[in-house]
């Protein structure tokens, strides 16, 4: 009985801590304004970043040279996105409020991926400029 109680409370606490932790990582990207270049490249120039754009954006991120310092957070947000997709799938038809919340969160994940892409493109351009300058 005590073990069952501990199990239920722990799972509930785990979900809350994990969601808050992922949101604390996502919060850093919200202040970042996407450049026109990235909006154009990703095709999100006319509308906001959609929740379903995450995987496509992540594929673009992987095409860019790695900065080396963003891998762990991209992976953590990827896990969070998968968890949200499961929540969206399971609770979508039962509780619309939860579905709407998970949709907003997935959208934040997509925005995070767009910011990561923007940073990697800037990094690539800097690398290129540096190489050109060294050749001269």
């Amino acid at each position, binding site marked *: 009985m005590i073990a069952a109680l501990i199990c239920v409370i722990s799972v509930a606490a785990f979900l809350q801590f994990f969601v808050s932790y992922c949101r*604390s990582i996502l919060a850093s990207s919200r202040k970042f304004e996407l450049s026109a270049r990235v909006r154009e490249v990703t095709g999100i120039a006319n509308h906001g970043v959609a929740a379903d754009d995450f995987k496509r954006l992540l594929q673009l991120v992987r095409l860019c040279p790695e900065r080396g310092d963003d891998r762990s*957070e991209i992976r953590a947000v990827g896990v969070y996105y998968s968890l949200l997709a499961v929540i969206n799938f399971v609770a979508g038809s039962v509780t619309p409020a939860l579905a709407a919340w998970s949709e907003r969160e997935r959208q934040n994940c997509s925005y995070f991926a767009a910011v990561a892409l923007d940073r990697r493109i800037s990094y690539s351009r800097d690398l290129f400029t540096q190489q050109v300058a060294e050749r001269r």
Partner: protein
Amino acid sequence: MLGPFEYGIWLIGFLLEIYVLVCAIFRRSFVKYLEINVYMSAAALVALGEYFSIHHYGFQSINYRYYYYYSESLLTILLFWVVTQFYQQVFAEMAVSRYIRGAAAFLLLATGFFSYIVIHENKDHLTSRFVVELGQNLYFVGVVLTYLLWGAVLTLRETRTRLIQLVLALGVYFSATAGIYALRNLFPGLQPSLLRWLPPLMGIWLPLAWSYTFTKVPEDARLTTARLMVKAR
């Protein structure tokens, strides 16, 4: 004997613990985060001890089991010290550190006593049952303490991103591990298959999350806690 996967997990955990320590030394914040660094040092030493214990006595030996459970209980108690420090940081302006220390010590003693009471009737396997029961209860007390701390962080509108992430990572660790222990008590049949892998994986989480925080989050970074609250509109 252990396979490459188990050794891989062990090595990753050990290296991450060392990384947190090296990071603290190079950034000259060893004393500032003394509790975390003491915990990481102890965790790294325990990991080394585990390695030698497995090689000397074997993975299935009773010696290793006792070493594993008792060292884990000691590490959890050290984590309580870390939590106490977080409380002191959050309540720094209220000058209530003496009461926080007293409350933490009381909770610790109460947990040990409660665990003893629960297994009192099973005197034939008192020690082995005691360590599992104590582990479950210690982690659960950790969940409660961290949850209360998180409530205080939200109420007092704490903005230090580093502190917020350190607390949340600890909360994830405590709640996941308490849940795993409780599942082991509820479904002992799952232990050889699924539940055997989860505690070592969770062992990696804390040094991984803390090393991320110390590396990526500057000391002066600020965050609005209202953004972290889960609200369904």
